[in-house]
């Protein structure tokens, strides 16, 4: 069933039903895009509410109880529904099979099922709003989560179902990478985005099941009172934290590894130069993925785990720093003697490098156990992970959207406004989160509805920055919508990139390639 001329995956069939039942990985990618952008808008609104509330000392626009729910929803939505599916399930779904030279992912139905898992899980989670909401924070720590209001169980079940979405996507990507590579596409010829997604998929498959069982036990805790995590019945709440972070630390890399993959693509394309140290970057993805399973205890340095465990976790955490450093240095080295053009995707990639470097070094500061005792659960941590998650992952998502937009929709975005959105997001981001490092050093704990007057000036700056980021993302949304309808028609390869997805037409036909590509060289042959 190869496509007729002029037909592509978008216009091959029409009607909402054809989209909701599609098995085409590209269409499913677009479904993910819509879902993730919607969730991002909701989570972002909650973020704006948080920063507005924290604009001044004392209650501003809500009560403490409402604040805690807003904070919980912001965290849970952004983690489970935006950043985790963001790059793999949206950009990855669209790009991975094309970069491998495949016609689709290995299991198209499972792929669609995984989208429905996300939607159903998210609906269940949002439904908790009608059952008094949730105020546990996205971490669901026991015993607080056992004793608080009933909405918690819906949120927990929602996260459980979304977990399946993540597992199924990961499973699909692993099998696709192993079984559906184009002739000649050896592992060492795969683009770095594929390497990153493959490492991510390993994490999704190996870590998420433990989250599933943890959340099931938490539900059982509330419904059946099993007492496994309830100190009143002999259970150990610290064990819950072990189980939770066994998933949630690798989850941090589920969020950042694909972003690193996107950045590898962007840096090499817009430097018009082969990537520096391909193997080192590829292997460091797998290395980060593997080591990430051994470090979860650094989220628990002051939780009451044993001192010996804490020190060991601190040591292994240092080891994760090494492959991360390799990546950052190799990206910078790629720029050397390059021919760098500053199209909007590249601006986001450079922004990523800037912010991720700061996020990375502050991560090392937090990994030093003696210093972390002071910084743990303060705004320093909040600033650090926003530098990595927003400054890293969201910058990469934005860069990735602008980069692959011509391929997805056959149109270019408005370059000028895309750059404006970058400037607003980049500047706003630093204004928002840099002061939070200082707040953390000053000792302001996180998840605070109210704070001492001494913290007010920096909180004000932070809130102003947040509104700037919000504006930046609105501009970004406008750029995307404008590009969809009125953008200039793009060629097959507007950026002069070398990976396989650029060899087919834009937008690609149903089966991606009219002729099965055969690979004879590495992915970044700029000679």
């Amino acid at each position: 069933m190869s496509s007729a001329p002029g037909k592509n995956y978008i216009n091959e069939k029409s009607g909402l039903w054809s989209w909701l039942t599609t098995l085409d990985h590209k269409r499913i990618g677009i479904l993910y895009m819509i879902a993730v952008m919607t969730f991002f808008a909701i989570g972002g609104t909650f973020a704006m509410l948080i920063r507005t509330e924290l604009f001044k000392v004392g209650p501003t626009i809500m009560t403490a109880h409402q604040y805690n729910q807003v904070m919980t929803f912001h965290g849970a939505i952004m983690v489970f529904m935006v950043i985790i599916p963001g790059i793999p399930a949206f950009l990855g779904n669209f790009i991975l099979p094309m970069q491998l030279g495949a016609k689709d992912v290995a299991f198209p139905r499972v792929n669609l099922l995984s989208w429905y898992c996300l939607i159903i899980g998210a609906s269940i989670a949002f439904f908790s709003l009608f059952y008094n909401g949730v105020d546990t924070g996205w971490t669901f720590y026991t015993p607080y989560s056992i004793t608080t209001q009933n909405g918690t169980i819906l949120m927990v079940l929602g996260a459980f179902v979304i977990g399946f979405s993540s597992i199924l996507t990961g499973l699909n990507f692993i099998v696709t990478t192993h079984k559906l590579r184009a002739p000649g596409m050896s592992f060492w010829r795969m683009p770095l985005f594929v390497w990153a997604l493959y490492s991510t998929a390993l994490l999704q498959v190996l870590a998420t099941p433990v989250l599933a069982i943890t959340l099931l036990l938490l539900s059982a805790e509330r419904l059946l009172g099993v007492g496994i995590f309830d100190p009143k019945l002999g259970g150990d709440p610290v064990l819950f934290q072990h189980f939770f972070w066994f998933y949630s630390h690798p989850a941090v890399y589920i969020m950042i590894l694909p972003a690193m993959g996107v950045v590898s693509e962007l840096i090499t394309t817009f430097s018009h130069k082969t990537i520096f140290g391909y193997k080192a970057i590829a292997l460091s993805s797998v290395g980060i993925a593997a080591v990430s399973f051994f470090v979860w205890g650094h989220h628990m340095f002051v939780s009451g785990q044993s001192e010996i465990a804490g020190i060991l976790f601190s040591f292994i955490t240092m080891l994760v720093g090494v492959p991360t450093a390799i990546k950052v240095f190799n990206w910078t080295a790629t720029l050397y003697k390059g021919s760098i053009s500053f199209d909007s995707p590249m601006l986001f990639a450079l922004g990523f490098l800037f912010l991720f470097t700061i996020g990375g070094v502050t991560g090392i500061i937090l990994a030093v156990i003696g210093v972390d005792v002071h910084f743990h659960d303060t705004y320093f941590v909040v600033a650090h992970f926003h530098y990595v998650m927003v400054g890293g992952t969201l910058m990469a998502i934005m860069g990735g959207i602008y980069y692959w937009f011509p391929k997805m929709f056959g149109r270019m975005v408005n370059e000028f406004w895309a750059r404006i959105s970058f400037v607003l997001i980049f500047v706003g981001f630093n204004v928002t989160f840099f002061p939070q490092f200082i707040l953390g050093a000053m000792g302001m704990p996180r998840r605070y509805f109210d704070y001492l007057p001494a913290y007010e000036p920096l909180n004000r700056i932070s809130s102003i920055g947040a509104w700037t980021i919000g504006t930046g993302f609105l501009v970004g949304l406008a750029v995307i919508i404008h590009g969809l309808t009125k953008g200039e028609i793009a060629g097959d390869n507007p950026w002069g990139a070398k990976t396989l997805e650029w060899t087919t037409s834009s937008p690609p036909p149903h089966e991606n390639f009219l002729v099965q590509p055969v690979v004879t060289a590495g992915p970044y042959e700029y000679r």
Partner: protein
Amino acid sequence: MAHGQHDNHEDAQHHHIIPFNIYIKVFSALMCLTILTVFAAQINFGAWNTVIAMLIASIKAGLVLSFFMHLKYDQKIYAVIFGTGLFFLLVLFFFCNLDLMTRLNVDGII
């Protein structure tokens, strides 16, 4: 792995068929081991009770994996996948247990 996908389906065009009597032998062995583990549980070996029970269970699991699940005859990658799962499970167990075993000031209130 130089040829991408095409190396995937040259080596297994004809699937190995395990002879009937091997299935029956494995089944008999599993039955005997089940009876053995029940029998062993009636005798008190002290702390070794659990170890013996787990050892027998692991032998049974090995039989099921190798023959019923064809791991012995199939591509090694499947064993690698399964082993990876077990390995990371051990990681979870190791660190949780390390924490609980080395807490110096565990004075339970209840």
